[in-house]
């Protein structure tokens, strides 16, 4: 830069820089919404179009007033999201702690790995929905069952990536630890964790999406507790198609935010090293 940056915001320059990154998604999403709205308006599909979020008064109210609370299950979207997120936070934290712990053990111990890897590979293929009846029988209550479903769905990427990260510690670093005769504790904190950290974060990032997917599945099958999954189930029972559309868009948005958050954390950790 030869000229000093002016204190004001230069719209023309900003536009020139950002045009290429802003215009294509705008066209893509706009085109998709237009297509969707047209097929709804022309009666090609019974699914209500995106405009129905605004034209249906009930849905518009939900959109505009996320914070209302009339007691019981009659709450705004914010409150449903909050209870879903708190369940996700619990199940996901549990998955992170157990997944990283077991992952390290399995990564360090070849025999343990041989013993349990087939089991892990098998269990991780079980869909969240399939865990729901099992969880309900195990816990007999919706709340812990939902948390278990999140836990068991989201633990595998964390566990498997952590184990891989530990196995991938370069032989050079292990040799340094050997020649310096490092204590186990020092090897753990100074070499193992920092070396495996990128892998652990990859697992954590994949898992946050899975955890969010699992909560919806769990809540839809366990009605009666507030949550975004219940919200959709309830709308479905009443035949409020535009509410369902709203719920789905909402879920996608929250999932996207969670993923971005983890991505941000991941790059912060990666560059902070």
């Amino acid at each position, binding site marked *: 830069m030869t000229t000093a940056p002016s204190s004001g915001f230069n719209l023309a320059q900003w536009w020139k820089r950002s045009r290429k990154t802003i215009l294509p998604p705008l066209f893509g999403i706009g085109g998709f919404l237009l297509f969707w709205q047209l097929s709804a308006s022309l009666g090609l599909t019974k699914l209500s179009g995106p405009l129905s979020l605004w034209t249906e008064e009930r849905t518009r109210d939900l959109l505009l007033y996320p914070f209302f609370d009339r007691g019981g299950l009659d709450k705004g979207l914010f409150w449903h999201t909050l209870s879903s997120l708190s369940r996700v936070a619990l199940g996901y934290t549990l998955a992170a702690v157990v997944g990283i712990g077991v992952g390290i053990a399995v990564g360090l111990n070849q025999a343990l790995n041989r013993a349990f890897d087939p089991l892990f590979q098998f269990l991780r293929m079980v869909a969240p929905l399939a865990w729901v009846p099992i969880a309900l029988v195990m816990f007999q209550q919706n709340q812990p069952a939902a948390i278990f479903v999140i836990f068991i769905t989201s633990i595998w990427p964390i566990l498997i990536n952590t184990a891989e990260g530990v196995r991938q510690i370069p032989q050079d670093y292990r*040799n340094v630890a050997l020649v310096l005769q490092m*204590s186990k504790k*020092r090897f753990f904190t100074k070499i193992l964790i*920092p070396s495996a950290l990128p892998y652990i974060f990859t697992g954590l990032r994949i898992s946050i999406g899975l955890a969010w997917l699992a909560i919806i599945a769990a809540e839809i099958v366990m009605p009666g507790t507030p949550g975004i999954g219940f919200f959709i189930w309830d709308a479905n029972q009443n035949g409020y198609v535009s509410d369902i559309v709203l719920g789905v868009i909402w879920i996608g948005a929250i999932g996207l935010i969670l993923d971005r958050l983890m991505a941000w954390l991941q790059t912060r950790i990666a560059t902070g090293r």
Partner: protein
Amino acid sequence: MTSTLRSDRSSPAAAGAPLLRFEQLGMAYPTPKGPYPVLENVNLEVQAGEFVCLIGHSGCGKSTLLNTVSGFAKPTSGRVLLKGQPIQRPGPDRMVVFQGYALLPWLSAYDNVHLAIDSVKPQLAEREKREIVMEHLELVGLTQAAEKLITQLSGGMKQRVAIARALAIRPEVLILDEPFGALDAITKEELQEELLKIWNTQKCTVLMITHDIDEALFLADRLVMMTNGPSAAIGEVLTIDFPRPRNREDIMEDPRYYELRNSALDFLYNRFAHDHDEAG
């Protein structure tokens, strides 16, 4: 350098029992087709304070030989004695400067050296540890870059950190596996001179692998030349008795320099030329 210091370094008779002793050392790696003999009947004695360079064709077993000293490889026959005791496992008394530096990239230059001291001498006060780290970073000319992350350093600077880390824990034997192979000529010469200077003050024993005859002639008391594998052994040992401290120009003017250089070249390229069916 006084002549008394030199004599107790290079004459085995005066020094008595050797620091290191390879006795009929044999080393074979297990392969699906049966054991693959890399080394056989290696015999060598190294005196305390000696600077020994090791040369030989790629794949002949130089790294393997040094791994039996560092303790990363167990001999399959014969033994390696350090002060009369067989070497059992890696330890900080035989510190290694690894072929790929092996520095921890998430730590600064300072922290890499500090971690080594902290692991080997945890009983020292923090202030003493800090002094040792800074003293050794200064020895290799890295005071300015102490707080830089390893990823921000050039190849030469990384090698300097690796050397500082190795020397900071005061090993009896310093093992270097082709330390300057990847560096440009100028950095290489600088580092050779620094290494010599430090070796002069710390008086540790150095075992160093190199592919560069001139480097060996400048640095070493003795040049150990290995025959080709499999079943490589020590072919010939050249004694390089240029006076120390050495100066590159001076030794290159010495007629013995070319005699030594020629006999090394003759060994490597005539008597033990690399045969081209090494895959077999």
